[in-house]
């Protein structure tokens, strides 16, 4: 298979002894009980598991949106959780893309502006990203809707815009938490096709959480999370 070759190179994401424990008053929930794994550059990984097994928790840790109780997450050789706040923000902005189950677009901004939001926040000249924007609009098949506000779009369209927004900086890694959770089967399929395309055309590393047996097989590898551990 093609990942044989990729595994030879340095891993894109390297997780060692990752633990996450939530303390709620007197109750302590050990959600992740020491995970070790690597993901190669350009790999497409699906995480599956029963509800409450810690999938989202893991994804947020990979996305530097949360801090682990123990263990490390390295991205391209850098330890995420030893970074300072601003560095993390920069990393999230430029090297990571995140897509949630809810599309979370800014209501009064147009499709274009929503996609450009990370650039707006970063302060870079918008013009520099014009080509990238056009390319993404083409890929998500929304060229005709670029001036529309999210209100006028269907759920599937909104989620595609959210994906494009995550990709505007051409990040190395795209993290998706049940991106099709709110979509019907037709829209789900077109979104997954989009994700697979991105993986191929840009070589973006993809980590997605999904409940769908069908979509999980679209990737290169499935990680089964159960009770805070991977089961095979």
């Amino acid at each position: 298979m093609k990942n044989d070759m990729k595994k030879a190179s340095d891993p894109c994401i390297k997780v060692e002894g990752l633990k996450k424990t939530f303390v709620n008053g007197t109750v302590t929930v050990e959600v992740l009980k020491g995970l070790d794994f690597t993901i190669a550059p350009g790999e497409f990984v699906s995480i599956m598991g029963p509800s409450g097994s810690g999938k989202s928790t893991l994804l947020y840790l990979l996305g530097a949106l949360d801090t682990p109780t123990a263990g490390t997450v390295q991205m391209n050789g850098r330890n995420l959780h030893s970074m300072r706040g601003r560095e993390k923000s920069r990393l999230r902005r430029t090297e990571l893309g995140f897509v949630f189950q809810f599309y979370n677009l800014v209501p009064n901004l147009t499709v274009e502006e929503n996609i450009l939001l990370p650039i707006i926040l970063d302060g870079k000249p918008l013009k520099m990203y014009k080509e990238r924007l056009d390319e993404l609009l083409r890929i998500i098949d929304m060229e005709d809707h670029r001036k529309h506000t999210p209100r006028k779009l269907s759920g599937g369209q909104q989620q595609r815009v959210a994906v494009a927004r995550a990709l505007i900086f051409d990040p190395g890694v795209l993290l998706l938490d049940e991106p099709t959770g709110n979509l019907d089967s037709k829209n789900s399929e077109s979104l997954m096709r989009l994700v697979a395309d991105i993986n191929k055309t840009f070589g973006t590393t993809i980590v997605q959480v999904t409940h769908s047996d069908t979509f999980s097989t679209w990737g290169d590898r499935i990680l089964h999370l159960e009770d805070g551990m991977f089961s095979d």
Partner: protein
Amino acid sequence: MRIFCKYIMRTMLEKKARLVLLLFAITLSTALFFASLGLTDLIVESVSRPIVEKTEEHHIRIVSETGDSFFSADDIVTAGIKSHTSSIVLPGVIQNLDHEIVTLHGRTWDSLSPYTFVDAPSEDSFSGSSAVISVRVAELFSLERGDALEVLFAGETHTLHVSGIVGNQGVFYGDTNRSFDVIVPYGYLAETLEVEGLYNHVTAVMGEDSLDASLVLFNEMNPDFRGIPLYNEDFVASMVNQQVNALYFMLVFIILVSGVIIHGAFKLIVTERRRVIGTFLSQGATKGTIRGILLAEGFVYGLVGGAFGILLGIGMLYVLHDYSSPLRAYGVVEPFRFAGALVVYAGLFAIGFAMVSALSPVIRSVRREVKNIILDIREPQRKKGALLFVLGTLLLCGSALLSYVSPPTAIDYAPFVMLSAIIGVLMVYPRVLDFLISLFFRRILPVFRLTALSIQNVRTSAALRGNITVIVIAAISVVTVVSLSSSMVRIVTDAFDSMRFDIYVHNIQTNDPGSRRTIMDTLREDERIVGESLMETTSVEGNVAGEFAIAEGIEPGRFDDFTDYIDFTHGDGNLLDALENAEERNTVIATTTAARLGLDVGSAVDLDFNGIVQTYTVTGIVDVRLWNTRDMFFVNLANLREDHHIDHGRIYFDTHENPETLVDELQDYFRNFGGIVQTRDEARDINIENNRQLSRMLSAFSLFAIVIGSFGALNNMFISCLQRKRDFAVLESLGTHQGQRNRILLTESLFCVVFALVVVVLYGNFHARLIGQVASFLLLPMDITFSLVEIFPFLLASIAIYTLATLPLLVKTRNLNVIEEMKIE
């Protein structure tokens, strides 16, 4: 539905911050409502209590129908009255202490029976030039029995000896270290004044249930005498009412701010619960029950907030009561009382207010199709913004039209005109905001990115727009107070600047023609004084057509030159010319008086001053502006002196010297008569200071509006932040950092406050005009101008306050948990 009630009870207590805010808004509004209602009675009570005491609970004064001030009381028929006391009452000034003003009461030994003596004097000791004083005065001046009091009265100094000391009852009730009362034997005073067997002060206890009935009966049976009310309760009330009306006016702003806050809170309440409401509907609850229960929640807030508000209101009244007790310095504070009905009114107000403010969100909560509520599906919204804009524009234009095109009508309905203008502004601005943002957003986005995004947030967040509303109302209340206060100062200054005099003497405590003549002669002979500038006036309070009125006794030939404040010119002549001949008994009256009493040029009117009634002819009507806001009658000074036996007054004159040094010297002379001498500047400053008291009270109200407003604004910021937590989380996942988030929040607040202030500044000029019309409605006709310079410090302060209010929000959102926010409920 008990379960839904239970659910609501639990959620009410769950959101502590909102509970506190709602209760705070209702409590404060109710408290101020209660205090304003109670204040009139309170002040009237605190002013009239000492009067009731001092008059020994007599209500009726009996005067001679012949108009003589001294008369025999022998033939009084005891009809309509119970008992009567006859005495001679005279003003005087103490010479051997510090020129205290005294009122001498010439009485018989018998009339002293209600008084408690600290020692036990005999009737014998109460004879000749003996004097009974109060314990308070004895202590204040370390006086004992046998001590001498040198008193100037009836033009001469007389020596009295303290022969008895009694408790601070009756006529002694109001004794202070500046003025007090002394009782002397009737025989002594009558002999000194050579009026044996005659009295000038006869009072009686009313014999019927009401004062009016007693007076009618008495006057019917006593053709030679006339019974008149001893003191005028209406007068006290009418003086107080004007100020309290101004407070009510300010109360409107507080109620508006609070109403907006309660309305906003309820909007949020029903939004938060829409799923639960849907669930209950799906289980068979009707829309009516849901609405009923939500309104019941408003009822509960009203009840609890109202209860707190009434307690706070009682507290406020208590403090004011303590403060307004005239004898507070002597440890005499009137018993604290308020009408029980006020509690009921305030309670009803609180409950009604809470429920009315909650009404529209509650009704809207279940307006959608039941199916859509259950599934939480939004129905296409009607374009409410546009409708509001049109309605608001109509209100604004309507009030502007009325105010500019037909001022008299506008004044008749001034409070409503102002209210509709304000509501109009509140309805119009959201659309304008929307339009401006959509116009400029795309232009500023490439340059000021975070700023543009923040402003965009204001457009989308109802809570933030609610903030603008709150700030607008609070700022309008500030504009109102500042404009009103500075206008009052300007008016007083203008009035004083328009009067030509250097020095002014008032409060002279003698009503005796002899003393007055002596004073005038002394001044005329003084070379430092410009002889021809000497001018006298007299103001007295009395009754006209049963209403309280003021007579201004003037020298017709001099008064018009004396002041430009009132314009007496009429055609080629002058309205005051008709007053020249005192025999004719003519009067020039104020425009407002003419309107109120239905008088016209040529009308005959009975003026009752000092208990003496004379018929006058109205020869002119003049706009007196703010010279006096009561019903006013200008008459010839000579009429007041000869017909009504009023001899005290004010004296104005110019000097060749430095007025300040002359005032110091003259003060010594006038102290003998209790008179107070002031330069024009002093008099003006004191007058301004008196007016400031009202503006201070009004400022307190607008401060309350700001305080409630900033709490409400803070709450709205939290609400808007809570509602957008997920948006912030998304931004976080897109790589914003805390600094950027803080900048967004701060920019939002700053934009809200600045936009609101711009709205208020634009509206300011029109508002000033409306305040002027409301003032006219309250019988204080004045021109109010809106001055940006005067308002500016307050604008800066508001910006600071609201920006500060954002800080807790920044702290609170510091630890935003993206994972939490992204969870799907």
